[in-house]
C-alpha cells in the first residue's frame, strides 16, 4: 500500500511538470492581449508600454521559467511565511506571481475567493450527494415504481436544463416577483450572529439549490444504474437465500459494491468544486474561483489563468490517487502492488 502510494506520487511529479508546460504553451499561443479591454482612446504606443511593463512580450521560455520559479519556490515560501510569521533571510526581493489585471499576488486572490466557492459550490456538491444516493438506491430497488418514474423525469429535467436557465428562472420568481431572496451575493457578509446567519442562508439558498439540483440529477442516475447492475447478481440472491434481512442485503452487500464506481465519480468531481461553478457564480454574483477564472480568461490575464488551471491539474491528479486508494477500502479484492 505504502509502496503503491509512493510510486503514484513519484509518477505524479513529472506528469504535473509536463501539464504545467503544456498549459503554459497553450495559453501563450492563444491569441489575446491584456490591454485589449482598455478604452480605445488610449493610443497604441501607451498600450505597448503597458505590455512591456507586464512582461507580455518576453520570450516564451523565459516567461515559463519565471512562472515556474515563482510557483514552485517563491509562492510556497510566501505561504509558509504568512502562515507561521517566520521570514526567510535574503528573500525580500522575490517577486510573487502577479495577476495582470490587478497587479496583486494571484495566491491572495485565490485565498480571497476560496471561502464563497467552498460554501456555495461545496455545499451544493455535498447536498447533491446526500440527495442522489438514497434516491438512486430506492429508484433501483423499486424499479419502474411511481417513485422511480417521477425520479427519472425530475433528474432528466435537472440534467438537461442548464444552470443559466434554472438560475435565471429562480431569480425572476424568487427575487423579482416574490422578493424572498437577494439576487446579489454579498461576499463581504460576516456571519457573527443569528440575523447575519439568516442573511447568509437567504443569499446562499438560490445558488446552492440550483447547483445541488444539477449535481443530484447527474449522480442519482449513475447511482441507480450501478445499483441495478448489482441487484440482480448472484451474490445478492445468495445473501437473500441465507436468510439475511432485505435491509442488510441492499445496504451492506449491494450498496457497498455499487458504491465503487460512484465513489470514483464523486472523488473526481471534487476538483471541480475548487474551480467553482463559472455560470452559476456569474448569475448570482457569488464571485468565487469560477468567476475569477473566466474573467482572467476574458482579460488575457495569463499568470492568473495559468496558476488556477495548474492548481486544478494538481487537484485532479491528487483526487485520482485518492479514488484509487478508496477502492481498496470498498473492495477488498483490489490489492495494491
Amino acid at each position, binding site marked *: 500500500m505504502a509502496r503503491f502510494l509512493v510510486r503514484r506520487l513519484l509518477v505524479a511529479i513529472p506528469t504535473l511538470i509536463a501539464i504545467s508546460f503544456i498549459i503554459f504553451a497553450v495559453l501563450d499561443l492563444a491569441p489575446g492581449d491584456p490591454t485589449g479591454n482598455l478604452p480605445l482612446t488610449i493610443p497604441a504606443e501607451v498600450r505597448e508600454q503597458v505590455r512591456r511593463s507586464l512582461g507580455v512580450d518576453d520570450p516564451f521560455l523565459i516567461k515559463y521559467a519565471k512562472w515556474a520559479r515563482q510557483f514552485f519556490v517563491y509562492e510556497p515560501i510566501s505561504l509558509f511565511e504568512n502562515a507561521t510569521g517566520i521570514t526567510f533571510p535574503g528573500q525580500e526581493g522575490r517577486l510573487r506571481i502577479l495577476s*495582470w489585471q490587478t*497587479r496583486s499576488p494571484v495566491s491572495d486572490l485565490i485565498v480571497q475567493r476560496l471561502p464563497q466557492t467552498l460554501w456555495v459550490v461545496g455545499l451544493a456538491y455535498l447536498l447533491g450527494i446526500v440527495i442522489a444516493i438514497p434516491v438512486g438506491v430506492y429508484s433501483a430497488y423499486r424499479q419502474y415504481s411511481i417513485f422511480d418514474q417521477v425520479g427519472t423525469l425530475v433528474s432528466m429535467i435537472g440534467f438537461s436544463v442548464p444552470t443559466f436557465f434554472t438560475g435565471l428562472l429562480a431569480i425572476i420568481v424568487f427575487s423579482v416577483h416574490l422578493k424572498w431572496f437577494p439576487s446579489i451575493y454579498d461576499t*463581504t457578509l460576516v456571519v457573527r450572529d443569528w440575523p447575519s446567519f439568516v442573511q447568509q442562508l437567504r443569499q446562499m439558498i438560490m445558488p446552492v439549490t440550483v447547483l445541488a439540483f444539477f449535481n443530484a440529477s447527474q449522480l442519482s442516475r449513475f447511482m441507480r444504474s450501478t445499483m441495478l447492475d448489482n441487484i440482480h447478481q448472484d451474490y445478492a440472491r445468495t445473501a437473500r437465500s441465507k436468510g439475511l434481512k432485505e435491509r442488510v442485503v441492499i445496504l451492506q452487500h449491494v450498496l457497498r459494491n455499487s458504491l465503487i464506481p460512484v465513489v470514483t465519480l464523486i472523488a473526481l468531481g471534487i476538483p471541480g468544486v475548487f474551480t467553482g461553478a463559472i455560470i452559476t457564480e456569474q448569475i448570482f454574483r457569488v464571485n468565487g474561483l469560477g468567476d475569477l477564472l473566466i474573467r482572467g480568461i476574458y482579460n488575457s490575464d495569463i499568470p492568473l489563468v495559468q496558476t488556477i488551471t495548474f492548481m486544478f491539474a494538481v487537484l485532479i491528479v491528487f483526487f485520482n490517487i485518492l479514488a484509487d486508494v478508496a477502492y481498496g477500502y470498498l473492495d477488498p479484492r483490489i490489492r495494491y502492488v
Partner: protein
Amino acid sequence: MKFLRTIILIVGLLALMGTSLAQRGRDGNLDLLYWQAVSILNPYLSGGTKDIYGSSIVLEPLARYAPDGSFVPFLAAEIPTVENGGIAEDLTSITWKLRDDVVWSDGTPFTAADVVFTGEYCMNDEAGCTARNFFNDIESIEALDDHTVHITFSVPKPFPYSAFVSAESPILQRAQFADCIGVRAQACSAQNFGPIGTGPFVVRDFRPNDVVTYEANELFREADKPAFQTVTLKGGGDAASAARAVLETGEADWAWNLQVDPVVLAQMEAAGIGQLTSSFGTSVERILVNFTNVDASLGNDRGEYMDGNNPHPILADLRVRQALSMAIDREILVEIGYGPTGTTTCNIIPAPEIYASSANDDCLMQDVEGANALLDEAGWERGADGVRVKDGRRFSLLYQTSTNAVRQDFQALIKEWWEELGVEVELRNIDAGVFFGNDPSSPDTYGKFWADVQMFTSSAAGTDVEAYANRWTCGEISGRQNQWLGNNQHRWCESEYDALSDQLAQTVDIDERAELIKAMNDMLVQDVAVMPLVHRADVSARANSLMGTQKQSWDSELWNIADWYRGQ
C-alpha cells in the same frame, strides 16, 4: 405673543431639522453595481473604464469636466486661462493654482509636491502608465510654491488641459507612492488597492474583481458632504441582470453601462422603481473602409499601405464606397440596437455641439436605388447569381467586428442591404479581447484589419477632439513598421487632411478650431473613409430614490458623488 412664540418654535425646529438633514453620512449606504468588477483602484494602471470610475470616488484631479463639457475646478482654485494669466500667451506653459484648504484623508496637507510627483510617476516609461498620453509634450512640471504648479510644454498647446484633468489623471499622494516609481509600480498592491485620496470617500475594503467598500472621508473639505456614510461597489454578472437589480428588484441604487436590448430595458423600467439615465459623448459606432489590398496571397505586403501602391481592388473607388453607405438605413439600426440609448448620425465627430457638422445629414435617408445606379456607373455589372462582377472580379466583402449581440444584429441587417446591391458579404465576429488587442502575431486584430470593412465604436478622450481627429493623418497609418499599432487602421491618406491637422495644431481660437474640425469631419465622411452609424449614449440606471446624480460622458459618471443623496 403666543403666535410669535409658535413661529419662533417652528423656525427653530426647521433650523434643527435643516442641520440634521445636512449632516455627513446621514443617508446610510449607497449600492453601486458594475457588471465589470473593479480590478485595481489606481487609474494609472487600470484595465478599463470601470477601474477609473471606481477610483474617481477617492482620487481627485485638479479639474474635472462638467456634463456640458466645461471644466470645474476640484483641487485647483480656478481654471487657468489665457485671460487670467494661467496660460502663457505663447501657449507653451500652464500654471495651476491649487486650493490651500485640502488635506489627504490621512490628515496630511495636499501640496504642489504631490502634483509634481504624480507627473513623474506616470511619465516614467517603465511604469506602464495607461494615461501616459495625457502627459505628451510636457517638458517639465515644477512646484513654484506649495500651491502653484507650473507645466512647460515643448510645443505650443492650444488645449493644455490634459495632465491632471479628469478621472483618468487624478493626483496620487507622494508619501504613499514614493516607492512605487517605474518597474516597482507593478508590485505595489497595497497602494494600488487602497490609494489615499482627497475625495469624498476613502477605501475601507477592496476585493479585486469583486467588491469595493468605501466610507465617507471625515476630512473631506465640505463639512456636510457626502450624504452617504458608506458606498458599496459590487461587481460581476452581466449588464441585463445589473439593470434588473436597479429597475426591478431594487437591490442596487445605480448600475453602470447597460448595453442591453432596448425592449428588455423598457420592460424593466416599467416596474417603476428606477429609471435609465444616459448621456452622449463622442462614441460613434462606425464602419471602417479598408483602403489597402488585404489579399492573403500578398504575403508580407498584405494590408501594407506602400505609399498608396497597394490599393484595395474594390473599395478604392469612391462611388463604390458611397453606394455602400447609401444602402444603410441608420434609423432601423438605432431602433433595433439602441432605442433611446442611441441616435442616428452622419458625423464621425458628433459632439461637443460646436464641432458637430450639419453638412452630411442626407446619409440619414436610405437610397438603395441610387446606390445601385452608382455601382452600375462604376462598371460593376450583375452576374448570373446576382452578385456584381467587374473585370472578372466578384464584388465580395469580408465584414468583421467583435463578438457582441448588437453588433451581430447590425452585421446581419447590413449584409442584407448590401446583398440588395449585388454585393456578396461574408461575416466574421472575433472575441473582443482578441479583436481590440494588439498581439502582433494575431491576424485578427482591428489594427491589422485584414478584412474589407470592420465595425466598432470609438470616441475621443474628453472634449478636445484634436488628438482624435489626428488619428486619420497619413503618419498614423498602421502597418508592419509600427507593429500595426498605428491609429489609422484603414490606411486612408489625404494630404489635404494632413494640412488641416497641421493648421489645427497652430490654431487657438475656439471658433476657428471648430471650423477646422468640422472640415476634417466632412472630409472623412464625404470621402466615405468611414461610415458613421449610431451616436451612442452611455447608459446607466438609477433608483428613483437616488438624487443629485448628473450623468455625463466626458468624465467619471461618479464625478459629483459628494452631492448624491437619498430623496423620498
